[in-house]
């Protein structure tokens, strides 16, 4: 299981939890696992999110590996000018 830290605004979709656990080996599985466990997260995740793995921000790739050893944060999808 990997622990995923959510931004506070997502607590409304997870029964008040800002830290949840899902079974995942990569970012894609992590996002799918979140939607399975908390279906209300789907619109947010579909709209686009980034995943910070040990501080490295994964903006797009679903294949980046994750494990229980990693510090994982869901953050909003990065764009720029």
């Amino acid at each position, binding site marked *: 299981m990997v622990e995923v830290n959510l931004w506070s605004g997502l607590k409304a979709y997870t029964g008040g939890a800002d830290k949840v656990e899902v079974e995942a080996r990569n970012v894609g599985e992590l996002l799918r696992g979140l939607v399975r466990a908390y279906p209300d997260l789907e619109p947010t995740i579909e709209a686009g999110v980034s995943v910070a793995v040990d*501080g490295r921000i994964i*903006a797009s790739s679903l294949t980046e590996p994750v494990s229980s050893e990693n510090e994982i944060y869901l*953050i909003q999808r*990065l764009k*720029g000018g």
Partner: protein
Amino acid sequence: MAPDGNMTNGFKVVGTRPKRPDGVDKVTGRAKFGADAAAPGMLHASIVRSPHAHAKILKIDTSKAEALKGVKAVVTRADFAEGLTGENWNILENVMAGDTALYDGHAVAAVAATTALAARDAAKLIEVEYEPLPHVTDVDKAMAADAPVIRAGAADKSVPEGMHPNVVRYHESGHGDVDKGFAEADLVIEESFKTEATHQGYIEPHACLAQLGPDGKGEVWCCTQGHFNVQKVCAALVGTETSQLRVTPSEIGGGFGGKTVVFIEPVALALSRKANRPVKLVMSRSEVFRATGPTASTSMDIKIGMTREGKITAAQGVFRLQGGAFPGAPMEFTAMCAFAPYALENVHQIGYDVMSNRPKQAAYRAPGSPMAAFAVESVIDELCNKLDLDPIEVRLKNASKEGTKASYGPKFERIGLVETLEAARAHPHLTAPLAEGQGRGISCGFWFNHGGETAVSLALSEDGTVAISVGTPDIGGSRASMGQMAAEELGIPYENIRTTVADTATLGYNEISHGSRVTYASGLATIKAARDAVKKLCARAAAKWGIDEEAVVWEDGCAKPSGPNAGEFEPLPLAKIARSMGRTGGPIVGHYEATPEGAGVSFATHIVDAEVDKETGQTKVVRYTVVQDAGKAIHPTYVEGQFQGGAAQGIGWALNEEYIYGEDGRLQNSGFLDYRIPVASDLPMIDTVIVEVPNPGHPYGVRGVGETSICPPLAAIANAVSNAAGVRLTELPMSPPRILKALNDQANG
């Protein structure tokens, strides 16, 4: 990915300052910009725009326009795809209004004719019947209970119950206990700030030439930061298949985020399809101001607590961003960037995305971050002043470092904020005496930077020269830096390489040139493509020598045996292998296609001296120093240019630039005479210091540099002006009337 051997072995080409490859074309007028495109039989187009801030469109009568000599096509919303959802629907609604005009300048119809004059005359003959609706253009008023609703149902599920329907997205993040932190502070300052919308101010207006046939095959030539995005969006909006539309980017006369968006290309395509002729569409300056994206305007509340020793005990911010008549104001970045420079145990930030009757905001260099820095760094400066603390030492005491838990959640990797502060502290600017009426301001700033989908192809010619094809429009010198990185890898002269921005049919999908991603992501892809080519070159040498490929190394532009055991052979230079490649296995081309995910975040520290005339409110920036972490500067002159450009745009944003709306909701200053951007005579020479703390996610350590440079200026200038004027300025721009008002308010207690 760790920075590889080149970082320690020393560079030969990277870090030097070769001539820019586009320089001669641009100074001689040979470079082709968006409006330079032409085609046989080409028509010219003009767009009819709403004169109302908010109005129902009751009827559009195009009959008189269609009867005018030379008119070949008229389009309205009915000529675009139906059934779109999500962001494509939002883009179409902005490109061509449906049943409601949502802002002054919103497109409602378009016409194509044989001459530009005939198109403009025809546009005047299109009769639109409107029913004006109540409007709102101010962010705070748009959130008030009595504000007119821009579009019911636009809010997503993140918005707490009870908010006005114009609040369409909500963000909340942070950690610790801010109430506990404020209780531990010796001084707590709470202040509110506002910033106006500013335009990116690119000199080249949006322009395109488009052709779309009845078979659904089409071409677009346009000025854009992302032609693959233009392809994707246009295909959806006109209802054709993506691969049937080929998009070629022109040279670009500035973008700064404003050309990441599609405005006119679908209109030109729809007109072309109807007329069965190519259609050229060029925006006027007024149209650029009225109908393309400025940045969001903001209203912000900041509260920070600090001990007498300068430790920040808690920080909290509320950020309300108005993004025009559509969702998307970058309030989450404002919130996430606001306190990123500081290691905080207690921090809390809230963001609101608010709709109003203004044009859809677009990204502008580090979208959302400069406004946050203005508010937060102003309060930090005020705390330093009141506690009699040194502003650099306070920032160093609280600075984020590798391993710090960022205000937005995760721990930072290797970052260079402390190094920029130490370089600023050592700079002579910081101790130079100030003249009467002058004040000094310091600020830090932060931006994430980005990677994104990237594809690069690198082809050898038989004469040993190399052609690189990239899919990211060159908005900041990337053709030079790609050439340098390839030259470094291949061991050939920079002058033997030409980099071209290829069209959408040539490469796989490339994300837009945004997020300061190009030197990082296309650079990484260029390095990898060059290494792919080197592997193939070594294989050809191995085959010639009859040895294993692993026994060949690439050094100084030559294939060589890896050691005595590999055998004794004369080194084979690239040109010699390339000369015979057709007979030794075929063309040699290196490729790399990936989504690099190691873009390193970056920080900057700016020092500004400003002089305020207290009688007139006039402000002059008299000295400016930018210190920024570039990771590794591939072409230092371009890096310095990015630093200076961000500072110059920040000076305009801080002192002069603003969207001014009348009571009628119409933009009153849609031209450069009334919307004043700084020109060379307004600016001092902007000094630059490049700090290099390598990004662990790039082979050479590159971090993006294009956006971070605009994060600190608003705050650094506000701090300098406030210190010079003796009164805290909390609204941008700090134009003479605002400075005089602040001085008068202070004098009147």
